[in-house]
Structures are given as C-alpha cells and as structure tokens.
C-alpha cells in the first residue's frame, strides 16, 4: 500500500519479497473490511424495513468511501511527517511501544 507509507526500500530475499507483497495485499484488504464495517454502521439504519438500498443510503455509502480515503491520506501524511521529524531529531525521548525499528 505504497500511498500509505512511501516508497519501498531494496528487498533482497524471495521470502521477504513475497511477505512484503502479502502484507501489502493484507493492508488493502483490512482497510476495505474496516470501510465496510464503518460505512454500513454510519449509513444503514438497524431496522431493515426493506431489502434494497434506498437513494439516501446509497449516496451516504458513496460519500463515506470518499471521506474514508481522504482521512487515510491525511493520517498517513501526518504520520510520515512525524516519522521524518523523529528521524531528524535522532534519539529524542519518545518511542513507547510503537517507536521501534
């Protein structure tokens, strides 16, 4: 999912390349699953009076996808910015559980 975390570094072994591709696909698939979960909860009322999507629900789903992508882009830009800052600062206080590598 290159739009999320920037370009890839050179990857040597075959197992590593497969693992990286697999991780990329898994990321996309997770993102889609969360999108389905989130957007159906936001747009589909829990009463189920009709089996079809009505106009309002359909439009809501479409806009929900657009906003979900926009949020993903903003968040990933923010996190890349912070990662770059941290690397620049080289050895600040932080880290915690997610500071590694």
């Amino acid at each position: 999912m290159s739009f999320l975390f920037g370009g890839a570094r050179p990857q040597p072994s075959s197992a590593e390349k497969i693992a990286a591709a697999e991780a990329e696909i898994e990321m996309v698939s997770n993102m889609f699953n969360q999108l389905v979960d989130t957007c159906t909860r936001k747009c589909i009322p829990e009463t189920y009076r009709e089996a079809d999507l009505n106009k309002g629900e359909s439009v809501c789903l479409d806009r929900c996808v657009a906003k979900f992508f926009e949020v993903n882009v903003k968040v990933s830009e923010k996190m890349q910015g912070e990662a770059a800052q941290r690397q620049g600062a080289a050895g600040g206080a932080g880290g915690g559980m997610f500071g590694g590598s």
Partner: protein
Amino acid sequence: MSGMDMLNAAEQRELQGRMERKQMKDFMNMYSNLVQRCFNDCVNDFTSKSLLTKEEGCVMRCVDKFLKSSERLGERFQEQNAQMAQQGGMGVGR
C-alpha cells in the same frame, strides 16, 4: 511503485496460493460478521427457541442489504483507488 511488480513467476505463484487461502478466510469472516450483525440487530426475543416470523424477515432483509452495501462499497473503493493511482502514483496494489 508497488512491491508486487518485482516478483518473478515462481514468487507470483506462491503469492497466488496464499491469496486463495486468504480469500477463503476472508469469505468466512465476511459470512460470520454478516450473521453476527444481522442476528444482533434482528433477534431480541428469547421467550421462544424458534425464530419469530418478523425476526426471520428482518434477518433476510439485513443480509440482502449488507451484501448490496458491500458490493457498492467495493465498486467505490476500487474507483477511489484507481483515481489515487493516477494522481501521483499513490495507488494501492498494482
């Protein structure tokens, strides 16, 4: 741009196999989320051990609506993704 473009034929076959197992798993997860969601939203009477007619109707409409929603979301997801790939090569996957 994407890691997948750098795989050779053997590596692509191996990845393909894993993806098929993943698809099966994904389908099962989708199925059980669907059941759980619709059960949760539709079944609330525990004075009997059989589904009430109205509960069954609710579950069926819930499944329909959920499948249609997933399909629509899938289409929009792919469009958005293709659009991002065009604007500055930031697409997902290939």
